[in-house]
């Protein structure tokens, strides 16, 4: 039981518990806070998986930008606390939800138990991986490989994502524009 294993258990607990809290909490702001904690936990799990660049990216973009935006909007819209109810009252919906959730859990567990196992691949030390294995670029922990892949193999998605961000920006401007009599 190395330290990494213990860390894994700790961080996965943190993630799951804060995710659950987020879903259950009637107050939207509290839910957003729990969400941030869940994201940080996920980032920690990324670190455990030696995807350091992605971990930082997760903190910066998700926890740092996306959740801040969420909080901003929540506070802008100023939702009344009394209206934020969970749909416990609707029995049928609740039953359906629980069943659905149960199904998902069962399926996930089945992957663990019944021999749907994925074979445990060997975890080789990173530095000695030969290039070209597994059909793509070899796994490295450096950000340089990100850059390398982005500008060679994944050039097209890279550019398209650029366009996507542009269109998203334009879309946001258009959607949130207020139309009054004098600003046509």
């Amino acid at each position, binding site marked *: 039981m190395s330290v990494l294993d213990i860390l894994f258990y700790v961080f996965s607990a943190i993630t799951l518990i804060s995710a659950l809290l987020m879903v259950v909490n009637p107050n939207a702001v509290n839910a957003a806070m729990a969400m941030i904690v869940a994201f940080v936990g996920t980032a920690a799990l990324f670190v455990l998986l030696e995807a350091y660049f992605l971990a930082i990216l997760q903190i910066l973009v998700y926890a740092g930008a996306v959740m801040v935006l969420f909080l901003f909007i929540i506070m802008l819209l100023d939702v009344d606390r009394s209206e934020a109810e969970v749909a416990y009252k609707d029995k049928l919906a609740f039953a*359906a939800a629980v069943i*659905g959730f149960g199904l998902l859990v069962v399926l996930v567990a089945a992957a663990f138990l019944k021999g749907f196992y994925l074979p445990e691949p060997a975890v080789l030390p990173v530095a000695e991986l030969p290039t070209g294995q597994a059909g793509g670029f070899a796994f490295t922990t450096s950000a340089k490989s990100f850059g390398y892949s982005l500008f060679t193999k994944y050039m097209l998605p890279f550019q398209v994502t650029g366009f996507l961000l542009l269109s998203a920006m334009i879309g946001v401007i258009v959607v949130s524009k207020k139309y009054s009599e004098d600003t046509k």
Partner: protein
Amino acid sequence: MTATQSILAALLTPLLSAVLIAFFGRRRGVLSSIVSVVAAAGIVGFTLLAIRSAQNETITASFEWLTFGDFTIHMGILFDGVSATMLSMVAFVGFLIHVFSLGYMADDKARGRFFGGLSIFMFSMLGIVLADNLIMIFIFWELVGFSSYMLIGHYLDTDEAAAASKKAFIVNRIGDLGFLVGIVYAYWHFGTTNLSEMEGIIAGNSELISTTIAALLMCGFIGKSAQFPLHVWLPDAMAGPTPVSALIHAATMVAAGVYFLIRIDYLFTPEVLSFIAVLGTSVAFYAGFCAYAQNDIKRVLAYSTLSQLGYMAAAFGFGYPGVALFHLITHAFFKALLFLGAGSIIHGCHHEQNIFKMGGLFKKMPLTSLTFILGTLALCGVYGFSGFYSKDAILIAAGFESGPLFVLLVIGAFLTAGYMGRLVWITFFGKSKSEAAAHAHESGLAMTVPLIILAVLSVVGGLTQFWPEQLGGLIRADLDTLHHVEGYDAMHLKVIYLGTAAWVVGLLGALFFYGFGAKEDRLETKAGPIYGFLAGRLWFDELYNFYVANIQQRVAELLGFIDLVIIKGLIVRGSAGVVGAFSICAKALHVGSIHNYVYWFLGGLVLFMAAAAGIF
């Protein structure tokens, strides 16, 4: 101008005239009449040109009209001696009738429509005469039927004309059903519907003649030429204007059936030929009786036409198509003359058609009466007139081929003379029996000149020695064959005696029985039951009416029920309803609640997972 070009010009001129009238002449009566008459003259001119440049050869030309896979419909012309003869007759008589119509229809308001109909009729008729394959004949056959429909129903505001035109067309169609099946069968059997090709195939292998094909094609003839049992439309067709009756229902359209038989002569087996002979004789006999109970001048002539068509069919059935063609041509001359004469009388008596209201017309309308009487003599087969030669040949052929039929045909000749005599004595002699007849006056030149020309033709037309050599080849050949049959001279003498007896007894007998200008029908007054039986005309019309009204109507209603309830209601509306039901179910899914949509999403996801896990 080559022969082919002249023929095509002759064929297309009336079409052009019809198109021009349809577009420009509907309201302009004078313009359309001139266009139509000029077109008819053009047809005559082109026909003469064609005959001269053909130099007695057979001209053929065809082009592919429609192709479906390896089946092609050709349009072509087959111009040999028979079609040359028929073409000249149709063109010339048609032209004379066109000229007559100028005078007769002068005060009719719908002249444009009438002349357009005449032009389209000429086009269709020429198509039948010139066609070189069965399918083209069928197409023009139907066109002729349509023109007949249009022209019979010319007087739109009378119920009688509308009903008569419908009846003519429908009865014709019944015959055409057999015709069409026959064409399909012929194509399947021979691989071609071209007349010359079929003739060649049969000449090469005479096993290929099929009774079925001949019988089926004969159905078309039965419908078009008004034989039993489809003869009922011809008397009713007299509801149309008199020039129409002359052109279509005496000279050309009803003769088209006989012409068609002559064209496909090589397809016939002896059984079918004898059947046609019997059929023709029975119609000739039957119509002769029916004419005694008719008071309308045109109806008498209609039954006379029926009778003469029976003679033509009988001649064909005896195996002498040339004799049938001969009688066709001479009949065209004198029957057209008789009808036009009747038209002149009707016009002169201000549209009075009942013969018992006429009388004493001989003094009032001398030219018409004279020509009419000449036509009557030709019809009765008086020695030297055209009708004599053709009827003579038919009776001789009958004498050689079949005893009973010979007797019937001779009796038919007696009957013919009888009813024509009745018509002539009552109409032209004695005293005028109505105001209209008393004020009758001779018709104008447009009407009398054609009468004179036709009268001349009726008198001399039978002398085939004087016909130009390009025409009448088949006629002369068959007459020759007849001459060389054993016992010809004895039979010929017998027929001359019987024929002369027929017309003498008939005409004089009618004179004594009916008297000059009788006021009412003596047969009706003296022998009512006989008259009533003759007027019943064997109750064909009543039988058909009963069938249509009771049996066919029930079937039609049943089919209507199936159509309305089952097909429209159940199947069409039902399938639309099933779709509608689906849409209602689908609509129920779109509630607007996001959570509902997510549940459905979950349901789909579970399904996909189950499929992936291999449950189904």
